[in-house]
């Protein structure tokens, strides 16, 4: 390894994830002259929300100027994808101009500590590399909440987020689809399909409508959020106007099909049953923070009883229970894209201060960012009350596959509880649940919920799967390629915050 390459492997700040939070964090640090490395799994910056925006898929070769979207194709792209998508352009533009060492296609599979430094190991094009940084900002974003339903493993069942990715990245849409679930992203996707000329056959809504608790959460921030509220109402009216068949209060939903999805059956308001044929199903049950990295570090986490998910504990400055590791954006608990960018800046300023940079001039900005993030968390609480996850209203049916990788059913998890399992980690040993290639990302929350329900214990006492590296499957060849990297001086350790490992 050349001296140059060795020098390249050490940074003051490492940011993981190039979504709104990560991009804002990296560019803010670069503005101060801090040496920053930004790692991202996708080929271009933007995260999932602004995915492929820098090239806007094959739709454009625009240089970031949304004013250039003047011809038919550009206008159609804006009309279908929506203006909110294009609002990410300034962040992406700023990143491409900033002095940030950005690595795309980097799959991070280990984050650890080496003395005072954070150490991040990632694979890119089947070759592993290890870099170190004095401070790490985890901006790993969100993923869709697993929505276990009978038949959800059938080919042809995708998440609504996946449907959006196809639309944003490649301009792909399909007709003859059924949408299942609840939450703003599902309705947004429905309007995108309508505008694409691919009106969904039906929308099966599991939400329970406006309620008092939701209104109470909304009141303190209603003025700040009137725009998104109006957008939401307009989406609902677009869906109605387009004549999409909507079935609200849906329960006992089953996805039918033999070797691929061919239809959906459910009950809806009033106990009526409906059977709908379709080719594709898009499901969505809200989003949850992606906590694999923070959990592998054994940082302190807490159960959020409004959102029904685990989130890392952070302070006002986005610093985790480990002083040189911060968590920004949706990965710290869902706050949405706009607030994530604010949170990224905030996390960066806090990190810069601890790295010895003079950030005194930023104290006003800092307060503004703290306020914006606080309001966003309040607004998300409103959304969580309005669109509660299905698992809180209906138990998972016995024959439903919970762990997609290892094909473990809800009945098997319930049997584990009968046998005395008190936490998710024991179900691993009994059933291999959570031990497949996705490493429990799409079953962990469901398993915790089933255990809580079956054992009549509050969800916050159940805990989570213990996450260990490699966080993503790696080959022996990738591990071996690490031998080309200079050895670290002391043995790598992970943070040692107490965490009950016995479950």
């Amino acid at each position, binding site marked *: 390894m050349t001296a140059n390459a060795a020098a390249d492997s050490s940074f003051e700040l490492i940011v993981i994830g190039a979504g709104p939070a990560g991009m804002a964090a990296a560019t803010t640090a670069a503005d101060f002259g801090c040496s920053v490395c930004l790692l991202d*799994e*996708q*080929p271009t910056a933007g995260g*999932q929300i602004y995915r492929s925006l820098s090239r*806007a*898929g*094959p*739709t*454009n*070769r*625009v240089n970031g100027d949304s004013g*250039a*979207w*003047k*011809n*038919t*194709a*550009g206008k*159609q*792209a804006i009309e*279908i994808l929506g203006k909110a998508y294009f609002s990410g352009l300034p962040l992406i533009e700023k990143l491409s101009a900033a002095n940030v060492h950005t690595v795309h296609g980097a*799959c991070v599979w280990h984050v650890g500590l080496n003395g005072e430094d954070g150490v991040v190991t990632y694979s890119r094009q089947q070759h592993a590399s290890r870099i170190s940084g004095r401070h790490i900002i985890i901006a790993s974003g969100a*993923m*869709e909440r697993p929505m276990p339903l009978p038949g959800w*493993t*059938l*080919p*042809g*069942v*995708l*998440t609504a*987020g*996946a449907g959006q*990715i*196809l*639309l944003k*990245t*490649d*301009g*792909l*849409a*399909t007709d003859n689809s059924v949408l299942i679930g609840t939450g703003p992203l599902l309705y947004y996707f429905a309007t995108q399909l309508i505008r*694409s*000329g691919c009106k969904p056959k039906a929308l099966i809504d599991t939400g329970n409508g406006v309620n008092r608790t939701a209104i109470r959460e909304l009141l303190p921030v209603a003025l700040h959020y009137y725009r998104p509220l109006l957008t939401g109402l307009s989406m609902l009216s677009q869906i109605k106007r387009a004549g999409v068949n909507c079935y609200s209060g849906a329960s006992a939903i089953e996805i039918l099909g033999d*070797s*691929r999805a061919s239809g959906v059956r459910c009950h809806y308001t009033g106990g009526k049953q409906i059977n709908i044929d379709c*080719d594709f199903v898009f499901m969505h049950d809200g989003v949850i923070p*992606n906590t694999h990295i923070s959990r592998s570090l054994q940082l302190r986490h807490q159960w959020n009883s409004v959102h029904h998910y685990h989130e890392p504990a952070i302070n006002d400055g986005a610093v985790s229970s480990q002083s040189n590791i911060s968590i920004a954006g949706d990965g710290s608990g869902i706050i949405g894209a706009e607030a994530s960018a604010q949170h990224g800046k905030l996390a960066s300023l806090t990190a810069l201060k601890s790295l010895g940079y003079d950030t005194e001039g930023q104290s006003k900005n800092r307060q503004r960012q703290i306020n914006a993030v606080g309001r966003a968390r309040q607004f998300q609480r409103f959304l969580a009350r309005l669109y509660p996850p299905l698992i809180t209203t209906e138990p998972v049916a016995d024959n439903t596959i919970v762990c*997609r*990788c*290892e*094909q473990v059913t809800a009945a098997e998890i319930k049997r584990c509880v009968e046998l005395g399992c008190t936490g998710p980690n024991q179900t691993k040993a009994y059933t*291999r649940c959570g031990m*497949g*290639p*996705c490493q429990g*990302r*799409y079953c962990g929350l469901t398993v915790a919920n089933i255990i809580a329900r079956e054992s009549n214990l509050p969800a916050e006492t159940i805990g989570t799967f213990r996450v260990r590296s490699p966080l993503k*499957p790696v*080959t022996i060849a990738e591990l071996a390629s690490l031998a080309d990297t200079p050895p670290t001086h002391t043995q790598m350790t992970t943070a040692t915050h107490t965490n009950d490992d016995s479950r």
Partner: protein
Amino acid sequence: MFKRLHFANQSVQTTEPQSGTADDEITFSFNQQVVTARRGDTVATALLLNNIIRFGQRGGIDKGPFCLMGACYECLVQVNGRSQQACMLEAVQDMQVMPLILCNHDADSPATTEHDPDDNSQ
């Protein structure tokens, strides 16, 4: 089935169709079936556009793409004997992609599962 929308077939800066589709078009194979794609498409996108939604089989269960963001590993396929996520893999000319067929961990399941090549015509 999935189709590419009009806006994706044109550059937004000019009114001309995206430069020479012949240039941009590539072909590769999935389970020995010829698949056409556009340069830059992922394997997952290309297969969906060709109405292929079963990418493999695990423990006797058919698998297709699910999250398309690299998290769920449901879209695993085999390229050069290595299992890879179809949603994270760019399709290239003449690439030979095979479905990933794995059996489950039950002792009574067969050690290998023969995959019927005709089975992927959907």
